[in-house]
């Protein structure tokens, strides 16, 4: 029965016989690389099968991981989002702490450098009205703070104490319309008065028109006002024009960034000019 079936399919038998011979021959012949042809052909053919199998497996795995297994991904995603938010908050806290440490370090350096009796304070509030440039600090009369004490920062002059209470004080910033300080241009030692103009910039007044003034010149306190110690930075000249009168019109960019004021030093040592003025009437 089987033989009769085989005889009905001569092509099939021929194909089988040819395949048998090819395999048989390949098993005995080496390729140019010295490997048996059967091994090379078998490996080559089977590697394609393996490639195809892996492609199918990868496809199924991709389907599984890309679609079916996504059910748990939402939970994981939410957990990761929460973790990320927590880490972002922690990072911000760390950055703030680092910034605060840096500020305090600079303040400490200034304190040592100035060799003045100072007390550090933290800015706890801003101005109640936009027309006035003031801040509130957390030190007051209980820390021996008094009116007209100079307030400075590592960057430069901040302002003066105008209203001390027991545990807090109001500080008038130098950029306030009513703020003023005796100043001099460091390069030429030309003196004048720096006043606030309310828009964040300062104006230097009473500088003679014949004086040598250049943009970028550094302006420091002169110490003659009896409030600010001598030699502290106020700012740099932003631009200077020869006005209609006998004086220059000088606009100064403050050295202190008043919008980022956090820690300050209050100078409890009165300037020498005030001490001298206080002594003169006594004589």
């Amino acid at each position, binding site marked *: 029965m089987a033989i009769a079936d*085989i*005889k009905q399919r*001569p092509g099939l*038998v*021929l194909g089988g*016989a*040819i395949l*048998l*011979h*090819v395999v*048989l*021959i390949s098993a*005995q*012949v080496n390729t140019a690389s010295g490997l048996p*042809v059967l091994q090379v052909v078998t490996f080559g053919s089977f590697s394609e099968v393996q490639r195809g199998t892996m492609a199918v497996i990868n496809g199924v795995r991709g389907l599984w991981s890309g679609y079916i297994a996504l059910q748990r991904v939402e939970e994981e995603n939410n957990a990761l989002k929460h973790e990320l938010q927590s880490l972002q908050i922690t990072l911000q806290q760390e950055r703030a702490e680092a910034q605060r440490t840096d500020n305090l370090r600079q303040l400490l350096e200034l304190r040592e450098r100035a060799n003045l009796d100072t007390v550090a304070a933290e800015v706890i509030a801003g101005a109640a009205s936009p027309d006035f440039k003031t801040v509130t600090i957390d030190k007051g009369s209980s820390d021996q703070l008094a009116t007209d004490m100079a307030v400075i920062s590592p960057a430069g002059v901040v302002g003066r104490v105008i209203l001390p209470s027991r545990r807090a004080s109001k500080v008038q910033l130098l950029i306030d319309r009513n703020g003023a300080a005796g100043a001099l241009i460091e390069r030429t030692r030309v003196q004048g008065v720096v006043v606030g103009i309310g828009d964040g910039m300062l104006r230097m007044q009473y500088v003679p028109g014949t004086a040598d003034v250049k943009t970028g010149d550094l302006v420091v306190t002169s110490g003659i006002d009896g409030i600010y110690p001598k030699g502290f930075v106020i700012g740099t000249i932003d631009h200077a024009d020869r006005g209609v009168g006998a004086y220059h019109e000088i606009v100064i960019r403050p050295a202190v960034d008043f919008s980022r004021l956090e820690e300050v030093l209050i100078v409890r040592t009165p300037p020498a000019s005030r001490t001298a003025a206080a002594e003169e009437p006594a004589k």
Partner: protein
Amino acid sequence: MRSAAALAAILIAIAVQTTLAQYIFRGSSTAIDLVLIVVVYVGIKSGPVTGLLAGTVAGLIQDALGPGILGLYGLAKTLVGFLSGVLGTQFIVSAPLPRFMLLLMATVLHSAIFVGLNQLLNLQQTGASYQTIVGQAFGNAFVGVVAFQMIEWFPGFVDRRRAGRFLKR
């Protein structure tokens, strides 16, 4: 039964080929392939499947007995046996001339496959020239036709001899 006869014929042809042929065809430049002749005959008489099976068996035995790659003769004779069977079933090849032509073509095809495989595999096992192949083809064709006629004539001759003896009595 026919397969067993074919197998026996193959074995006999191989035996003769390996023993007596060198004496019978001594001095001849052509190498008669008795096994090929048997395969062609089996194919003609029994069809393509039996022909290719006969070719496979015969070729593999020849390969096994020789020093070459196992399967080269097997493949060549398998194809020859198959084609012989196909031609034997499609055409009438009972006359000497068609058989001569068939054996001629079968030998050329066999040699072409064998030489082709050798060159394909860079084996260089055969240095057969075209003249040798053509000579072998004619030799096989001649011997084959004679052998076929004798094989087919012999049973009738025996019968006639028996019948003659019976009548004399």
